[in-house]
């Protein structure tokens, strides 16, 4: 349980407590049990996450990390807040005024606060600690999964980051070696026909790769790898692919998650799975 990451995009605020990135964005990390307050703030009402809008209370709410998720307290007397799941096909939660400690189940969340104008103020919260059981650990055992030996780096196989990971691993899984790990434009192209990823941008792919490397797998690139060749990004990608394959995080059966390959190579996928296997994922934004 390493906690959560809060990301406030540029132009929404900033505070002394959080380190503004170069572009004015704010990133806050909270460990289990830690709390961050958000709101307009003032000298007498300090907040960790400052949101600059007149319609937002000085102390608008509170985020508390609990177990592998987080809780949102709405300290406004009048406004509901929305917590959207950007990958959930419009899935969202409404947290009513004065609700204390509403548990938020999403790995990715966008917290949206209303303003007086047509716009909203929002920030993102990532909860990378969510645990997924190993496929062979399901069923039986009377629910006693707690004592099991499990993979300690678990991935949501319905998340976009997982699709990106499968696409990264695809050439090696299909034994088209020796081949380089696909580039970001190649990933975008590969996922273009996927219902949920048609509008996936190169920037989004890079973010997913960074999220995988830094928050999910906590990849350490192999040391002293020919620094002359530059391409640090490639080092990171190759590390991700190598680790995902070596430790079975991505397996042959996951190729079925990818859209059929167009062009010269005929569809060449194992049976099972297929497009209909995961209905939730195909309603894209």
């Amino acid at each position, binding site marked *: 349980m390493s906690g959560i990451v809060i990301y406030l995009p540029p132009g929404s605020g900033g505070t002394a407590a959080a380190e503004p990135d170069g572009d004015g964005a704010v990133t806050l990390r909270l460990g289990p*049990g830690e709390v961050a307050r958000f709101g307009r703030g003032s000298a007498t009402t300090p907040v960790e996450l400052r949101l600059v809008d007149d319609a937002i209370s000085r102390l608008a709410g509170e985020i508390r990390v609990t177990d592998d998720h987080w809780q949102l307290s709405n300290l406004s007397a009048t406004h509901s807040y929305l917590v959207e799941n950007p990958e959930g096909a419009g899935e969202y939660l409404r947290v009513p005024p004065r609700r204390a400690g509403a548990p938020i189940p999403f790995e990715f969340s966008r917290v949206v606060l209303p303003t007086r104008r047509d716009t909203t103020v929002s920030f993102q919260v990532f909860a990378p600690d969510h645990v997924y059981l190993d496929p062979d650990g399901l069923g039986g*055992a009377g629910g006693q999964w707690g004592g099991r030996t499990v993979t300690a780096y678990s991935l949501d196989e319905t998340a976009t980051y997982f699709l990106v990971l499968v696409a990264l691993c695809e050439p090696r899984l299909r034994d088209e070696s020796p081949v380089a790990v696909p580039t970001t434009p190649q990933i975008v192209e590969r996922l273009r026909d996927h219902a949920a990823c048609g509008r996936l941008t190169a920037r989004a792919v890079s973010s997913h790769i960074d999220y995988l490397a830094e928050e999910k797998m906590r990849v*350490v690139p192999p040391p002293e790898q020919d620094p002359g060749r530059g391409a640090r990004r490639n080092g990171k990608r190759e590390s991700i692919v190598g*680790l995902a394959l070596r430790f079975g995080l991505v397996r042959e059966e996951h190729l079925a998650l990818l859209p059929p390959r167009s062009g010269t190579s005929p569809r060449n996928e194992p049976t099972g799975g297929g497009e209909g296997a995961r209905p939730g994922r195909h309603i894209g934004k």
Partner: protein
Amino acid sequence: MHGPADTSGSDCAELLAPGYRVGNWEVTEPIAAGGWGTVYAGRAAGEDRPATRDTVALKFLPTSGLAPRQARNVVDTARREVELGRRAGHPRLIRLLDSVVLSEPDHPFLDGALVLVMERARRSLRDLLHAGPVSEAEGARLITEICEGLAHLHRTGWVHGDLKPDNILLMADGSVRLSDFGLAAELTGTHGTHGYAPPMGTFDYLPPERWKAPLGEHGVQVRPSADIWALGIVIHEVFTAGAPPFPGATPMARGAAVQEYADGRAPLRLDPAVPPFWRELAADCLAPSHAARAAHTAESLLARVTARPQTREGLPAGRRRRAVRAALVCALLCGTATASAPHGARDDVPPLGGAGRIRVFNAEPTCTTRTDRDPDCSLGLAIDPQRPYTADNVVPTRVWQGDELAVDCLLAHGIPIIDERDAWSPQWFRVRLPAGSPRPTAWLPAVRTKDRPRVPACPVPASGR
């Protein structure tokens, strides 16, 4: 070798019929099924062996239906078990008797499966804890024996990696065996400080630093201090009928509580049911960082356990036994124990005679050159060389580096002993004890001398006393 938590009736496991042959072994009944495979009870096949002896556990690790990379993981797991069993055998580790690769072209599920043949335990510590709390004396014995196994593993350069009550097995006589070395890591690097294991574990036993550990190309870095953390959890569980020390309804909640504690935002609150000595020991094992925990090695913990003050019934017999145990442990484990051995042999040298002579060799470097007969450098002589070399199986007479002993004969196959320099031998010498000793003879492990006199083979002693 998982406990009941893994008895899941996993649908990938086709059960084998009793009588199924695996090499020189045959299946008798299923014991448990888990994600990694199925464990059966078995026995040595063939009519010349009595059916009552040689009950073993057969751990089947199927590889069929797995992608090549997954099959490789299974093979890696088995390889670790075999490697560890071969190189780090010890009375406190479950003994690997055999490993077999099945060739069953007609049965795709079985073809290529790996079978590990192991000593059969009666139950796991988890089963025992489910049955209710254990007494302080019993808990003390269990923890001592767990420490013995762990100290040996660490000394021979391995980290267990998945220590928990499900993997701590109890034999029919109640003695402890550590098992399930599928995640064991061999210590590497120039200083042998750490190894690498697959990124797996059991949440309730992971040290706080593991939640943030990076994943490198060889896996996740593990150090002996990870086992020490798990030992702290186990000590707490032993005295609380299995209740974990950290609060929370789920492993994730408890994992978060571990993190809060490690970050200094929550104190350690151990159950008052844990007796004071053991509470202090558990708290040291649960030091929040690797650096703070590194001060407490399995050997130093074992020395503390064996030298602990007796809290009640200060009977001379009990005290004597404890002292002997402390000295023996130090003899086995580098002489870190601090208790003295009042029943040591002082300066009396055993009378000579017998078929040959050997000089005692103490492989512990700090003892090899000492001549002051320090109790910490004394070595124990076994009563029965075929039973574990533990405190209840040694005579009061102690011996030291350089002592000359009279030898009657050599036993080729006793309990194998590994010394502090990793010399290994199952051979034992029967040696004469000084006149007036309660027994005329006792047994010295062959690793405790460099001499190999020509002496007759000993008749196999009747087991038991």
